[in-house]
């Protein structure tokens, strides 16, 4: 079943990244391999501009459900961009057992 807007059917295989909180997105990043992160990044980055243009037709508080998921998917792209572009590993280097958790964030 499609969970993203039809125009973004090519990203359907990465729909598991469309989760509503930063904490959940970060947890997914830590439990993924670099190959998985790279595959998602490679598929999603070229579609980022298209997604922003598409979503711009809506007020951010009035996104339809599939649009909301598309936004979360690209929030997750932000989350995985660091391992792919910078760290070459899922975790921030030298961050040990440190956690920095979101305790307040926007509903959407």
């Amino acid at each position, binding site marked *: 079943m499609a969970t993203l807007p039809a125009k973004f059917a090519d990203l359907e295989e990465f729909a598991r990244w469309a989760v509503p909180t930063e904490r959940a997105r970060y947890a997914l990043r830590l439990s993924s391999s670099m190959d998985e992160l790279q595959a998602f990044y490679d598929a999603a*980055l070229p579609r980022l501009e298209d997604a922003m243009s598409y979503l711009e037709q809506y007020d951010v508080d009035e996104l339809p459900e599939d*649009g909301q998921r598309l936004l979360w998917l690209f929030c997750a792209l932000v989350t995985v961009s660091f391992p792919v572009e*910078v760290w070459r590993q899922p975790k921030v280097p030298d*961050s040990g057992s*440190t956690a920095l958790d979101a305790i*307040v964030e*926007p509903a959407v």
Partner: protein
Amino acid sequence: MPHFTKPSEGSWTEHYGLGTGPISYEDSISPEHYELERDAIFGRTWLNVGRVEQLPKKGSYFTRELDAARTSIVVVRESDDQLHAFHNICRHRGNKLVWNDFPWEETNGVCRQFTCKYHGWRYNLAGECTFVQQEDEFFDLDKGDYGLAPVRVDVWEGFIFVNLDPAAPPLQEYMGELGAGLAGYPFHQMTQVHRYRSEVKSNWKLYIDAFTEFYHAPVLHAKQAVAEESRKLQAVGYEALAYNIDGPHGMVSSWGGMSPPKDLNMVKPIERVLRSGLFGPWDAPDVGLGELPPALNPARHPAWGMDTFLFFPNFMVLIWKTNWVLTYHYWPTSYNTHIFEGTCYFAPPKNARERLAQEMAVVTFKEYGLQDSNTLEATQTMLESRTVTEFPLNDQEILLRLLHKTAQDYVDDYQGTKRETPVRVTAAS
């Protein structure tokens, strides 16, 4: 050769007379010293506990665990222009008044009155005791004598502060020239909030040290920029545009080279698409800011990008040229642990493009914060070894000297005067 003008004395540190010798970190590794700081500093200074937007209507409340000050408080809105703060304790037998599930966890909500979970005593939003279960069973009990124990509360630019010391100067006076110099900044427009929290295994002052100097940034965070740019940044190092110190508070003014970058190749691929990064979204929203308030960009430098204010003891405000704000709070829980809170404030995004630009700024903050936090644990453990006891600070670390000197001054003053610990105030009016 400095790139930016320094005071005529040749350095900021000498200009402000803070001494140039090496410093000791004994104040950050001693349990006994921390016990003194709890009363001398956290029991006596104005502490920022929230923003007015967190109390939007009559009956809105939140609790704050002030472990360092040996209490828990509840802050509540009684009316449009009246806030109250109370020690979070029932006057009957001392039960914590407002909590859910876990007594030590902070909570918030909206209520018409406070009712103790234990024996059902009730208090109105002004803290007056309005109901005592089986009142006739007590001996000459006058409810009027059993209001909640009040805590001083006041508001600066929408930030709610409390002070446990009845004798402390008023908040506006305490905030001084730097606080007054930010008056009118449109903090109230920035209601899109992301807050992060971390339990950090270091003394509270060590994290403030890390965030009041940017000498570390080109090194510790080298990988945040593309490789070539990172090498350049490290070769140049860091220099502030200006420092300003007034009383216990200080600020550092910084350049803003990456927002937007001069050359898109200087930044990472995703930043080029999102037009956002470490310095926040590159495109500033309209927040009705006319001329900058006098405390911002004190050098009036055209390359200005961001100012960092430390309001003693544990509240930092970072104001960015592109109209967003970061705040940091450091809540000690022991001599070598504290809770760090970082909060990003933006103008509400109008569309997904702006929302994603903000997400980029927030996530970048988190990546940096994770590096900083863990480095502090490494610092704390080695400082505690006491194998080295004196440490040199450079001119770009001037605010560290200010913080440790100010904290020591408060402890010295407290030990000299030995006033009654203010948190022991019990009278309710």
